[in-house]
Every structure is written in structure tokens, then in C-alpha cells.
């Protein structure tokens, strides 16, 4: 058949025939194709859900002691066994995820908010203050993180707020660096220069021109940083500098279980598995996010 409609249309001015797709739909499709990352994401979301509603769904109260059933091995009644007071370990793990998410998560978020702001400002303005800030962060990063955390927590005494602050302080320089390096490359892009030429205010340039372009990589960074903070919070809990008993905490549980390892290894193994599982799941998710946001090449 002859196609008269083609004759009349100037191709360059005709709308493109490709179907328009939402950016986020495309990201979701890409994520969906990566099976390990999807598994990771689901495990992460499971723990996150538990952190939200854990106490409501746990089979037992995490504080309920039952001397008759102390040191029970895993069974259908107690999926992960019981501890020396007869408390249900599975329930304690489920409820304990709230601590991990609250401490690690808010620490990471504070680090991101402050770090990204500092990174944006120092990267955008450059000059002397940028130089000072960058060096300051270098100093902070040169101290072994665990050592710094120990010194700080011992000085201010273990508390939830203190723990959050330590996590935030440790990761703040890293977030600032990541943001700064992205801003350094973005601020020389022509669309930012065009904004300057037409007389945009700095606030507009930051929020409308630069920040949207950093969102993908920042999401990847936050997710990765969270897995580190889980590790850090658990380690500090193990050393007794985190949450204090009787609150359930995975690190603390492992510490308490040490003495009972030869009689009741499940006391130690299951919290340890929970920690590994959450970290591995978060890392798999990060990997998926990276594939999703970086596969278009560079900062997009």
C-alpha cells in the first residue's frame, strides 16, 4: 500500500515514534532483571518490615523468660532455640532489627545530609575553604574508624544518641567526598554554565541543575554506607558500647552467647547469620542499584 501520510510529514519535525517510558519504570525494569539483587532487596525489605512491626508479629515477647525452656535447641516451637533465660532467640532477632535500622540508618542519614551539604558547598565554591574542609576530612579518614568510634564512645559513655553521632561522624567525610567529586564535574557542565549565563541564583543551580543529577549515585552510596553502618553498630554492640541489656541487639546477643557456645551454639550462630544476611542483602541491593543507575555511563 502507498503511504500518503509519510509524504506530508517532514520526518525531523514529526514526533519520535518510540514509546515514551518513565525514567523510574526503566530503572525498575533494569533492577528487575538482576535476580541476586532482587533477592537481596527482598531480604532487606523483610528486615526493614520487621524493624517497623517486629514486636507485633514476633511469636514471643522478646523479654519473656521461661526457665523451663532455657537453652533449647532450634525446634518448631522455638525456630532459633532459646537462650540461658529461656528467651526466644528468633523473637529477639526480629525485634533487634529495629535497633540496627534505627541506629545505623539514622546515623547514615545524618552523615548523608550534613556530608552532602558540605560536599556540595565546598565543591561548588572551591577555593580556600574547600581546601581546609577537604584536608580536615582527610585527617578524619586517616584514623582507623573502629579506634575512633571506641575512643569517642568510651569518652561520652554508651548511649543510643552517642552511637548515632559516632556513626554520623565516621561516615560524614566519605559522603562529603562523594558529593564533592560529583559537584566538581557537574559544575563545569554546559547546562550549569548556561544557567549562570542567564542569571540563575545559586539556590536554583544547586537544587534544580546539580542535585537531580547526583540522586542515582547518592542512592547507591547511601545503600552501601548503610551496610557498613550495620557492621559498625553490631561490632560496637558486641563490645558492649552499643545498646545496653536487656534491649535486644544482635551484637550484644553474640557477646552474651560467647560463654554458652559449647553447650548452645545456636545462641551465637543465629544472630551472626542475621548480621551477615542483612549486610549481604544490602550489598546485593547496592550492586543492583549501581547497575541500574550507572549503566547509562557516568553520572546521568
Amino acid at each position, binding site marked *: *500500500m*502507498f*503511504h500518503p501520510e*509519510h509524504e506530508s510529514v*517532514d*520526518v*525531523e*519535525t*514529526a*514526533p*519520535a*515514534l*518510540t514509546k*515514551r517510558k518513565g*525514567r523510574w519504570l526503566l530503572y525498575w*525494569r*533494569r533492577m528487575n532483571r538482576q535476580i541476586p539483587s532482587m533477592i537481596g532487596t527482598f531480604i532487606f525489605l523483610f528486615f526493614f518490615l520487621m524493624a517497623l512491626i517486629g514486636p507485633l508479629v514476633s511469636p514471643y515477647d522478646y523479654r519473656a523468660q521461661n526457665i523451663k525452656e532455657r537453652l533449647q535447641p532450634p525446634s518448631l516451637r522455638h525456630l532459633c532455640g532459646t537462650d540461658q533465660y529461656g528467651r526466644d532467640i528468633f523473637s529477639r532477632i526480629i525485634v533487634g532489627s529495629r535497633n540496627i535500622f534505627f541506629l545505623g540508618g539514622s546515623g547514615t542519614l545524618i552523615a548523608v545530609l550534613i556530608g552532602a551539604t558540605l560536599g556540595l558547598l565546598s565543591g561548588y565554591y572551591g577555593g580556600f575553604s574547600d581546601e581546609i574542609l577537604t584536608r580536615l576530612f582527610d585527617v578524619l579518614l586517616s584514623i582507623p574508624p573502629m579506634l575512633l568510634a571506641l575512643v569517642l564512645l568510651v569518652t561520652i559513655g554508651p548511649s543510643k544518641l552517642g552511637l548515632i553521632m559516632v556513626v554520623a561522624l565516621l561516615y560524614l567525610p566519605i559522603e562529603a567526598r562523594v558529593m564533592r567529586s560529583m559537584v566538581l564535574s557537574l559544575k563545569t*557542565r*554546559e*547546562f550549569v*554554565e*548556561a544557567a*549562570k*549565563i*542567564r*542569571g*540563575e541564583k545559586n539556590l536554583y543551580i544547586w537544587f*534544580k*541543575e546539580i542535585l*537531580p*543529577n547526583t540522586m542515582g549515585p547518592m542512592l547507591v552510596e547511601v545503600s552501601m554506607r548503610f551496610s557498613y553502618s550495620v557492621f559498625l553498630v553490631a561490632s560496637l554492640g558486641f563490645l558492649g558500647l552499643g545498646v545496653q541489656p536487656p534491649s535486644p541487639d544482635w551484637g550484644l546477643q553474640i557477646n552474651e552467647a560467647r560463654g554458652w557456645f559449647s553447650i548452645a551454639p545456636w545462641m551465637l550462630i543465629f544472630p551472626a547469620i542475621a548480621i551477615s544476611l542483612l549486610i549481604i542483602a544490602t550489598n546485593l541491593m547496592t550492586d543492583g542499584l549501581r547497575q541500574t543507575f550507572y549503566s547509562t555511563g557516568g553520572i*546521568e
Partner: protein
Amino acid sequence: MDIHGETLKPVLEVKNLNISYETEEGVFRAVQDVSFSIFPRESYGLVGESGSGKTTIAFSIVRYLPPNGRVCGGSVLFDGRDIYSMSRSELRDLWGGKIGMVYQNPQAAFNPSITVGKQLAEVAQFHLGVSLKEAMSRAVEMLRLVAMPDPESVAKRYPYQLSGGMQQRALIAMAMITQPELLIMDEPTTALDVTTQAVILDLISDLKKRFNTAILYITHNLAVVANICDRIGVLYAGNLMEQGRVEQIIKNPAHPYTYKLLQCVPKFKLSGEKSYLSNIPGSIPKLFEIPEGCVFVPRCPLADKRCWENRPGHVKVENWHYTSCFNWQKVEELRREEVKQGEKLILKKSETTDREEILLKTQNLKKYYSISRYGLNLFGKKRSVKSLDGITLWVNRGFTLGIVGESGSGKTTLARVIVGLTEPTDGRVLLNGKELGPTTGERSKEQLKKIQMVFQNPETSLNPYHKIGNVLARSLFLASQGSVKGRKTKKRIRNDVVRMLRAVKLPPEYIDKLPGELSGGEKQRVAIARAFATNPDLVLLDEPLSSLDVSVQGSLINLLIDLQVQNRTSYMFISHDLAVVQSISDWVAVMYLGEMVEWGNSRDVLKPPYHPYTEALISAVPVIDGHGLKKIIRLKGSIPSALEIPSGCRFHTRCPRKIGSICESEEPPWQKGDGDHWIKCHIPIEKLAYIENQKE
């Protein structure tokens, strides 16, 4: 029988090659039924615009396709043997041994941590089985053959210590060291300056004569292939449209695409006439929109019913010359029509320029970059890079000043200083007689509105997260000072946006598109619309066409000319392409190492007498039909570092017309030629004119 009239077997035979890529959005066919062969001692040029599949073909010949690419039909025969049935070890023998490859980016092709000589020797050792000592001496010998200055010392240097042109030369030496039967060159001169490109092209045609190597030359530049190839294949959207001997294709194109493409190549005329350029309306089909019939049909002036339904096969025009077009006999008609219209294309240029109002003036503009980071240098003397060293020029209202020069001459820095993105070290910028602040932050809104800029790279010109409509609306909103708010203004701005899209010949539907959905040329149109949104007096155009295909370049130039006529806007047009500059400029300034060496009315600058540098630039432009200048002038080496500027005349280190020690010691004076024309040279202007006339 081959092209030299002897009976020889082809070195390379590509038969009905089909290649497809698997992508996120589905499978698309990048190459469809492409067949050609290359004989010994022959150079075959594969020409095509971006997306035509030319690089894919090159990679498929050496079985180097990316993991998602697949040959799904046809065969590639090298010396009569199918490359796709060879074993791994046979292929190793082929790669770098019997087939040499030269890539577009020499920097990525060399290992940065091994000396050039060693990398060449390694190839010789592996493929020729010679000792290291022998290999090293062959490496030096090969470097000498590619006319490398001081080959012994170059062999001991690391790749980063060589300039781009020298790296490309070394890469050619590396590909040639095993005396391969086939040399594949993928855009070997695209990343180089015109002057360096000219030297490399000379080298390739020289090597062609000396060795028996067959060459497959891949490029987007028709003028380049016309100068160095024996036969040409024209690719479009993965299909071979036409192939034949160079003279057949150039003089007698038998495919409308080839014909139009030839028209699009900017013709360099020494008259310096401002003119519209030809272009092919439309753009190359998007990956999944390849038409059922002929792939060129949506843009073809000769298309009829047959073309939409069936894909034409290969038709023999004469010996060696094949086309895939149903209506090839009608191509001649296109030419006749074009001649009739030709007269209209030349624009009348205003004769009086002195009396015009001066819009922008720069006075002794300087930009030095200090080398030490904090401005302190405790040891040794203070060094600085002099990007701009005293530029004084002016732009008249409604006229175009073209700025030409090699990369590193300071063209872009000049534009950035004028627009306020880079703070000048010294000097003043005056707009309408009023001095402007040194940076955008120190200029008033009113002043900012008056000067806008269009950047070189359309890909990064637009924020990928902003819809086209919002980009333009924002500029309009700022231009209206945001004085009125409310729904009424919103509607008015939307109408204005549509009007602007129409002005740059984009459909109103583009309002809701993101930049990622647009082609390079369309993005550049949006960038132009954005620049015009504030109703500026001056638009700085920094190489706005250099990343676009030839067939699109013309339409953008024409758009710019129209917008200028409508709005009486002034342009400062920066480009390395003299032919393009000539078609749009009223005035031309030639820059070298942060300084102007010649400037004036474009008619006068592009005609003799020339500054020796301008002469070399003009001579380096590859042209399709005969050369503008009879004598070929090639510059030695590349532009010196702006850290160590030569004393006296800055150009004396490379000048082919250096007259003596005066060039090294004294800064040359400005000499006035006929009309509005100034040349900065020691050679008297009468003599410069005489040199040029003698050649004719």
C-alpha cells in the same frame, strides 16, 4: 580483475553481512546485507554519518564485536578464508600481523606505561619472530618511514610525551610494522586539528604508494576519502547505498543520498561569500524505526510508491559502480533543479561596516593561568599559561565575527571571558559602550540577558532531568524578570515556548520531551532556542556544529542565518572549520597562541594576501573538487605550549615563510591591507600578495 587492471584475488571479501545488536529495548539490525571487497594495493573508503554502522563493520572484520553484537548472516573472507570459522590461534596471527588497525583515539590505543619503541617492537617480536634487538631497530626504522622527526628519541619516549599527531603517526607505524595485507583505519584523523589532519593524510597516501597494503578507511568526511581512496562505499543506516570508484561517485553520484551528501559538504570558496548551506531534511532513522522499504525513503526527494514498499537491490550503473536505488537515473534531475536554485542561496553582504554600530568591544583582554596552585612559587621563576594575550576586537550589531585557529589558540577562552564564565586577568569587555563586570555574578540581569552562548557539546548542554518546555520556559521567565505571576502568564509563556520551538523548526510536541529522547542536532536546536529566549544582542557560538553530522550542519547554519536576519543579533562564531566559518561570517579573526594574527572583512581575509598561518590553515582544508590553493603548505609539528611562548613572532617556530632572525626577536607590526584587513607579520603585505599571485 581489480582496479589496477590486473587479475588479483581480493584481500578482503565481505558478503551479505548482517549484524544485529541485542539491547535493553530489543534487537536491532545495525548492518544489513552489506557486500564489498578490497583488492591488494587498493584503498577503500567506507563513508557514513553517525549510526550508519561503519565502525560495526570494521569491528566485525576482525571479530571484535561487543558481546551484545552478533553476525547473523553473511561471511567475511580474508584471503579467501572465512574469518568466522578460524581458530583462536589463527586469529592471533591475523590481529596485528596480517591485519593492522588504527583507531580514532591514539591515546587509548597505546599503553601509557610502556615506551613507544617497546610497544612497536613487541608487535614485531610476536608476529615476525625476530630478536628484541632486531625488533627495536625495526621499530625505529618504521618510525622513520612514517616521517617521525627524530625517531630514535621518540622510540624512547612514553605515549603521553607525544602530541596527538605524533601519537597517530606512531600508531600507524605500529600497524604497519608487520607489513600487513590489510590496514583498517577507523576515523584516524577525526580527533586531530585540520593542520595535523592534512599531514597525516599526506602520510597515508604516501604509504599507500610504497607498500602493498590494502586499506579500509572509515570516516564520516567525504572530502577526506575523496582525497586518499580509490573506491568508496556509502553507508546509510546499516545499508550500502552506493559504491564505486572515487571519480564515479564524486562526479556522477547515482544515489540521491550520495548526491545530497556531496552537496552538504561545505564548499570552501576563496571569495568568502556568506551563503546558505545545503542539507538533507530529517535525520537518520532511529534504531527501531528502520523503514520496510528503502532506508533512505523518508528523506529522499525522489521517493515513490515502490521505494516505500520494497528494498531496492544493487543495480549496476557501469563497471565498478553500483547503486541501490530504483530511481537512480533521476538523480541527474536533482542536479538540474539545484542549479536553478543555486543563485538564491548566496546572501548579499552589507558593504558598509565601519558606519555600523559597534555592539561589543574588547580591550587588551588577557587571561593567564598560574601554574602553581596557590599563586605562590617558592622555587624558580613564576610561570603562567597565557591563554589569551591581549585581544582587542569588536563586533558590529547584526553581523557575525568568525574566529578560527587550531585547538589551543585560545578561541574558547575568549568566548568564556566575554560571557563572564572565566575571569580575565586584565582588559575590559564593553557592551554598547558600557563596561561589563568580569564574571556573571558581577553583571546585572539586564546585561546577562544581552549576551548568550551556545556550547560545543549538545549532549551536556541540556540538563538530562529537565523537559524541553521547562528549559525554554525558565529562560523566558527570567527574561521577563518574573514580574507578573499567575495563570495568565503561565499560558502566555507556554505559547511563547511553542513559538520558539517553531522558530527553531521543532514541533510543539517536544515540550514534554526529555533531552535523552532528542538527537544531537535537535538538542543543539533547543540550545539555540534557549540562547535566543532572552532576546540577546550577542550570541557566542562555540563550535556549535562540530559534533554534528554534515547532513544536519547545513540546516543549523541556515537556521542561525535566518534568526540573525530576523532579530538583528550579532554572532561570534568559533570554529576550526574554515568552510563553515566562511558561510556565516562577515568578519573573520585568525587566532594563534592567544593572539590575533590576522583579521578583517571575511572577503579580504579569505583572499590573498594571507598571513602565513592563515595560508596554511586554508591549504589544510580537504576539498572534494580541486584545491583552492595550488601550492600545498604543511605546518611542522603542533602548536607550542602556551607555557613557553616563542619570542618575537609567536608563529616563527612553524612558519614556512620565516624571513630571518627578525622573526625570532621582534614582535611583528600590524599591517593594513586593502579595505578592512589587517595582518600581523614582518613580511611586507605587498610581498605576501605577490607570493600568492605567483602560485596562480
